[in-house]
């Protein structure tokens, strides 16, 4: 089973890294690092598009219990805060259940998003691979295809020309028909 054995070398390396570090000058500040407080390193996550923004929002907002309680009311502010805190305390079991549910949802969405991204990458890679293999592996087929494509293009252009001629003929025909009708009248 994983982690059952003592990883001696890993422990030694970690100790050496800790005890004989390539140290800087700054002293670690007592309050926790701001970034470490945000799950999954959200601070470093640059929202690439709206989906990413939504996932970032999920990650930042899944914990609905640990939220700052504030009030901007001048006189009743502290009373409002106290009441809100009491309500939060009363609702704790429910809120905790919701937090766990939210967390699981967030993880699932994130996992799916990563998987989707991987799949898209794989698909692009495969497309590239197929294209390159096809062109390098079967040059005569590619040449034939190109010839056929050119022929099709030429054929399409001929059709277009015929269509134009047809339209011209139709117009002339219509004109003649109209003239004939005029004459009959």
């Amino acid at each position, binding site marked *: 089973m994983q982690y059952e054995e003592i990883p001696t070398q890993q*422990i030694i390396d970690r100790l050496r890294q800790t005890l004989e570090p390539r140290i800087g000058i700054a002293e670690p500040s007592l309050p*926790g690092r701001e970034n470490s407080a945000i799950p999954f390193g959200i601070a470093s996550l640059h929202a690439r598009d709206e989906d990413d923004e939504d996932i970032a929002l999920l990650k930042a907002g899944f914990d609905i219990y640990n939220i700052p309680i504030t009030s901007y009311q001048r006189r009743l502010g502290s009373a409002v805060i106290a009441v809100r805190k009491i309500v939060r305390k009363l609702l704790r079991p429910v809120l905790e259940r919701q937090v766990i549910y939210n967390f699981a949802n967030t993880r699932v969405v994130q996992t799916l998003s990563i998987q989707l991204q991987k799949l898209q990458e794989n698909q692009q890679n495969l497309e590239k691979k197929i294209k390159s293999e096809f062109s390098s592996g079967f040059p005569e087929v590619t040449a034939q295809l190109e010839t056929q494509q050119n022929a099709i293009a030429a054929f399409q252009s001929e059709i277009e020309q015929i269509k134009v001629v047809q339209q011209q003929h139709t117009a002339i025909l219509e004109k003649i028909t109209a003239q004939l009708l005029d004459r009959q009248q």
Partner: protein
Amino acid sequence: MTTLPICSLIIVNYNGLRHTKDCLKSLQKLAYPEQQLDLIVIDNCSKDDSVSSLRELFPKVRIFVNSANNFAKALNLGISQAKGQYIGFLNNDATLDSHWLEILVKRLGTNNKIGATSGKLLFKDGRINSAGIQQLPNFYWRDVGFGEKDSGQYDTEGEVEGLCWAAVLFRRECLEDVGPIDEDFVMYFEDVEFAKRCHKRGWKMLYTPAAIAHHEYRGSSKGSKLTEYFCNRNRFLYLAKHEPLQLVSSIHTSDFFTHKQYDLLFESLFVAIKKLRDYQKPEIIATVLPQLSEKLAVIYSRLKVDRILSRLQVVGGDRKMSIAIYDHGLHFIGGGQKYVATLASLLQNEFDITFIANKAVAVSDLESWYGLNLSRCQIKIIPLAFYEKRGMQCIDSSIIVEDMDNPFDEIARESKNYDIFINANQLEKVKPLSPISIFFCHFPNTFRNRHFAVDDYTFIIANSQFTIKWLDKRWNLKPTFLLYPPVEMATVKVPKEKIILAVGQFEAGGTKKQIELIQAFRSLLADYPEEFQGWRLVLVGSSIPRNPYLKTVQNLLKQDSRAIEVKVNADLDEVKSLYARASIFWHGCGFGEVNPQRFEHFGMATVEAMQNCCVPIVFNGGGQPEIVQHGRSGFLFNTVEELCQHSRQLIVNPDLLAELQAGAQQRSQNFRLARFEEKVKRFFEIIHQEYATIRLPNPADVAQMVESDRDR
């Protein structure tokens, strides 16, 4: 010629076959009787084929392999093997004129006060490499005449401050009188330091220009960066040993300081302070150390300086390593608390252990609660104002939300007074300020929040694979290793009775599922009255007063208490007796739950039962599947129907019951104290070894480091 004394010449080799070959060839041409020459090569753990090739090419040369890549150590090894009256050191990139040895031997023979002599050392192009060494201002040293054209300006014999060890000949008595070369220097500056000791002992160093040797500039050690590193580092060691009052003023003139290589400066001074403590009188140390400490605190933080001074006390053997074990719930009896108390009992002879608690509790309490000897441990109570003000007995960190100050900063400040800080009960908001810190995680109860500090710990130790899974899921962290709790509950063997035992706290939230177990037992009695004739369900557990859940259980039994007993806060002997007599063990914790916190994170009671040959039928969740192998050492259930089915299976089949009882007992051995002890001792032995030892730099690593720095 045969009257000449035996001379041992020691050559140190590290991945330098080409140079060493040339050097040995030049020795074959010496105008010195071959039988009087004792040639020694010390290989510094070369990674090329040096040793086997040299053995093949020079069968008469004695070759030894050093245990580390350390030039000074190699020379000491060579000296210990040398047979000669005179002992020479040669760099492997040096070659000797044929009369070099003869001249120096004769010169040493004329005056017993001369401890060592060397000749004129020239580069291949004829420029001077060294005509002795001399001190410069700012405590750096240089080769006399370095790089100058040889126009006879150094052709006068004379005493010098020191000699370059690229080619030098010592009198054996001098080496023996002065003592071994200081191996902490590794390479470079060891000649300066040794010369200083020679002078202190009254030995003279003589420059004899008639003896010529040639040296390939930095052929044996790659690049000037390596030389710079060791010369700068060892300069501090030299000063700490011989001119301690200059140590503080030497910092600003150090290349490490002027080049802003503060990390290298820090490492070097760490070793230098050790030297100071090892070699100087207490009054000198008392003068220098505070000055040094003040100066370093300006460059680094006070915390870092205090840390190295504190660590050096351990390195010097002045005190044991200190461990602080913080448990915010130490005043309660619990499995997690027993876990760390056991750990403390195992380590108390090798470490100074202090428990840190937030509420009043004594070492004697811990001893009586857990049956342990903790006589060498101490306890320190640090009340937390936030919880005291609110009269809270339970230190619940989850009530500290985003907008609040961190009340655990007080514990963080205390942590810096110890070498190791152990956060024993996964309180995620305590920032460790000790050099080494360990976070024991029994389950990641919270989510990452503003005061989350677990990332700052050196090591994380988890109590089960289940905890490891959630540690990753919730905190995105991986443990260093897994340490199952130690369980020792085996009692005397007595005949088994028709008892189904369930041990678990009557917890107010009902996590141990006693009500569900009662209902399951009742349904078994109703469905199979004959088969379950004489069987009893005994529910044992602790409870707080006025426990509403317990009240519900008791009310349930008031209606019908047939064959069901509830034993609240039973003493240990009674629990042991029940374990010994019970045939089957039920545990339903986690059943019907979605919150992983409400699962059994490991399941000590299950192991206790198994050690007493009770067949466990436990909920298939949390840490329980790690203990019970379904069908071999018990059963895992997912539904009440499965619980009932497996129970009946055992009751109607005594052979299967006996088989699984043996299987359970065997499986439980994996979670005994011996395994725990072995792991704990091994882990802390590694920590102690690394903390109490100053590692000497390996030149190969340093070369790689300076190389990568250059690339950056």
